[in-house]
Structure formats: structure tokens, C-alpha cells
């Protein structure tokens, strides 16, 4: 068990170190996220009220789009020199590879969520009514997205068309997460009179379930 956590930490820190050095997240994905927020603003004709009403949906669509980039990126660093094969042969438990990669993507997504969160407050004038609901939902939803994303990244790894395949495989499956997280955010940002914590509970349940499904799929994928 101790070994497992050590391995997870190792994989996570490896990926994050590569990310920190290459600065893809800060130099490419974050500007892309900002660009999406600006584009939505322009497309919706900078109508302040609409932007405030749709802020949670726009936020989560931006997160999903950025997640696709982050997942693609996370798989690309393994593809070079067949690193994923090397990793699998290195004796590290496949579950540690899966969870480690999931953690690394989740941490990057969390940074992006904070960035986008500040973005919608500044650009769309969203007002935070329930900060803890925002934080809790943001945390769990990004784990769910990362877990499922990592598995689909593994599934499609080695395919030349991965970048285009990933969205159509992943996005329909993530629809429940999108719905739950958006509704929870609607409540937390005070644009809908609903019980956001119920939606958070749904997202949290989905996160546990999808991570479990991911781990199971990873087991099936790794065995020979």
C-alpha cells in the first residue's frame, strides 16, 4: 500500500515536472482558456446579463475543452520514445500509473479552474454566493474528468488520430458531470434557485464511480 502511494506520487511529480519545464499549461492552455471566455463574450454580444446567467455553463465547457488539451498533452509526453511501454515494463503497478496520471491532470485542471473562475468573476461579473460549493464541485468534477480522460487517453494512445478521437469518445460520457457541475455552479453563483449541494452530491458520486470504472478499465487494459 505504501509502495502504491509512493509510485502514484512518483508518476504525478514526473508529469508535473515535465509540465513545469515545458510550460505548455501556462503558455498555451491558459491563454486558450482565456480566449474561450473572450470568444463567448463576443459571440453572446457582450450582454452582461446573459453572460452572468450562462457563466457556469461557459465555465464548464471551457474546462472540458482545456481538459481535452491537457489529456492529449499528458499522453503525448508518454508517446515519445514509447515511454508508456517502458513505464508499463518498469514494474510500477498499472493502477499507480493510472492514478498518478489522473492526479497530474487533475492538478493542472484545478489550476485552470482557478484561473477560469477568476476570469468569469472579472469578465462576466459573476458573484460568488457559496464559495465552498464552488470549491467542492470544482475539485470533484475535475477528478472525474481526469480519471475518465486518462483511461480514454490510454485507450487511444498510439493512434495517430487521438486528438480528434478523444473528444467524441469522452464528451458524451462526461455529460452527467457537465450537467451536475453546471447546476451546482448555478446555485453557487446565485443564478438559479436550486439546491446546489444536491447536485454536488451527484457530482461526488459520479467522481467515485467514474474513478472506479477507470481503475477497472485500466486493469483490463494493462493485463495481457
Amino acid at each position, binding site marked *: 500500500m505504501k509502495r502504491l502511494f509512493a509510485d502514484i506520487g512518483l508518476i504525478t511529480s514526473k508529469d508535473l515536472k515535465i509540465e513545469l519545464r515545458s510550460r505548455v499549461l501556462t503558455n498555451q492552455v491558459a491563454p486558450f482558456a482565456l480566449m474561450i471566455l473572450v470568444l463567448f463574450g463576443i459571440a453572446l454580444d457582450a450582454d452582461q446579463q446573459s453572460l452572468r446567467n450562462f457563466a457556469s455553463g461557459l465555465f464548464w465547457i471551457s474546462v472540458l475543452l482545456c481538459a481535452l488539451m491537457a489529456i492529449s498533452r499528458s499522453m503525448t509526453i508518454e508517446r515519445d520514445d514509447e515511454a508508456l511501454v517502458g513505464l508499463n515494463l518498469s514494474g510500477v503497478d498499472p493502477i499507480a500509473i493510472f492514478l498518478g496520471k489522473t492526479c497530474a491532470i487533475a492538478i493542472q485542471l484545478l489550476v485552470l479552474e482557478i484561473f477560469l473562475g477568476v476570469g468569469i468573476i472579472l469578465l462576466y461579473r459573476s458573484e460568488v454566493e457559496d464559495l465552498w460549493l464552488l470549491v467542492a464541485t470544482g475539485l470533484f468534477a475535475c477528478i472525474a474528468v481526469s480519471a*475518465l480522460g486518462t*483511461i*480514454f487517453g490510454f*485507450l*487511444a494512445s498510439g*493512434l*495517430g*488520430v487521438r486528438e480528434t*478521437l478523444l473528444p*467524441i*469518445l469522452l*464528451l*458524451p*460520457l462526461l*455529460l*452527467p458531470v457537465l*450537467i*451536475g457541475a453546471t*447546476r451546482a455552479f448555478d446555485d453557487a453563483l446565485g443564478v*438559479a434557485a*436550486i439546491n446546489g449541494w444536491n447536485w454536488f452530491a*451527484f457530482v461526488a458520486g*459520479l467522481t467515485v*464511480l467514474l474513478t472506479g*470504472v477507470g481503475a477497472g*478499465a485500466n486493469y*483490463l*487494459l494493462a493485463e495481457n
Partner: protein
Amino acid sequence: MTVPITTASKGSKILGITSIIGFAVLILLAFFVTDPDIRFHPETGEEFGQFDAVRLLYLHVPMAIVTYLAFVICAIASAGYLIKRTFWWDSMAHAAGEVGTLTCALVLITGSIWGRPVWNTWWEWGDVRLMSTLILFLLFLGYLALRGAFVSPQRAARPAAIVALIAVLDIPLINRSVEWWENRTLHQKSTLSELKIEDLTLFTLMLGILVSVLVMSWLILHRFRVAWLEHMEFEQGVKSAIEERRHIDNKEQ
């Protein structure tokens, strides 16, 4: 030895002919024997109902049932593949997935065509089944795209099986979340349940289901055989390439 020139067999021919006859009978019943759905308002006596548009349901509902059936077969065959790891299961999953996607598209299209005169809209965001079916369709488009992305059918088998299983597990979640999501809008009552179901209507609907199951079986059977042949051809190609290589090596020595 007779050389097979098609994927047809005696059984599949009987199945095909039965389907065609069944379809002809279905058209006869659906268009000419059954009555249109006309009801009268109890107080004003005004005519209302789906009128002749109801005849679309004899096609739409059976195809929806067949679509779900095909996806269930796909999921079972995928699980079968993961347990047995034989190409038979993989071909079956592929065949059922492809046929299911095709009928799913038709379910969405016929539903939309029916919805226009009855609900007065091509698309109803507030309907859970409609939304879930669309997402299901998109999921299986992804499934087929994943299969298509692999060059060798063997390498596609495992990822595809896992995707199919995850997709089928996700369906109840999608259904649930869409249901909660759309609850904030006015819920559309199920139009089928308020339809007066008479003996003949019910019989036509049942015949429609039977015919659709026959057609689906025929399609899956032939698609399965095509997948099987493709697999054989691929293996043959690999084998002959190895042979050729060996031949060259022997010459060089």
C-alpha cells in the same frame, strides 16, 4: 467443395425472406388496416389526436426497442470478448454496435419527423428519452470511430470492448442526469401512454417489433460474417507477408 461467393447461408436467406414478407404485412396493417388516432374532447366535442401521424409510431417504437437490444448485445459481446478473448465475440460486438448505431440514427430521424406534426417541433429539449437517445447515438459514433482508427482488427478489440462497456454503464447515469436537468422545464407527458391502445394497434405494434428484430438479426448476421471475413483476410495477409519474407531470407542465405 463449393466456394462461398456471398455471406448468405440457408438460414440467413430464410430470415431475409421472412423479414421482407413481414415488412410488407406491416406496411399493409400500419397504413391501411389500422385507424388513425382521432379522439374527441369530452366537453367541446372537438377533434384532436395524432391523426395519421400515429402510423409513424409502428416504425419508430419497434426501431427504438431494436436499437436498445442491439446495444445490449454489443455490451454482452464486449464482456464476452474480455472474458474469452476470441474473435467471435469481438465480431459480434462490432456487428451489433454498427447495426445499433444505424437504427439509432433512424430512431432519432423518425422521432423528429413524428414530433413535428404531433409536438409541433422537430426537437424537444425537454424530453428525457430524446436527449438520452441522442447522447447514446453520439457515444456509439465514438465507439465506431475508435474501431475504425485501428489498422488491425485484433488491436481494436480490447479498447473497443472497454469503451462499449463504459458506454453502457454510463447510460443510466446520462438518463438520470438529463431527467433532473430537464425538470426545471415543463415536462412533456409521454404521448404514447395516452394513446388509446386497441387490439389491432397493439397487434401492429407487436408485429412491428417482430419484423424489426428479424431485420436487425439479418443485418447483424451479415455484418458479423463480414467482420469475420475481414479478420480472416487480415490474418491471411500477415501470414503471406511472413511467408514472403521467409522466402527472401532463404534465397539470401
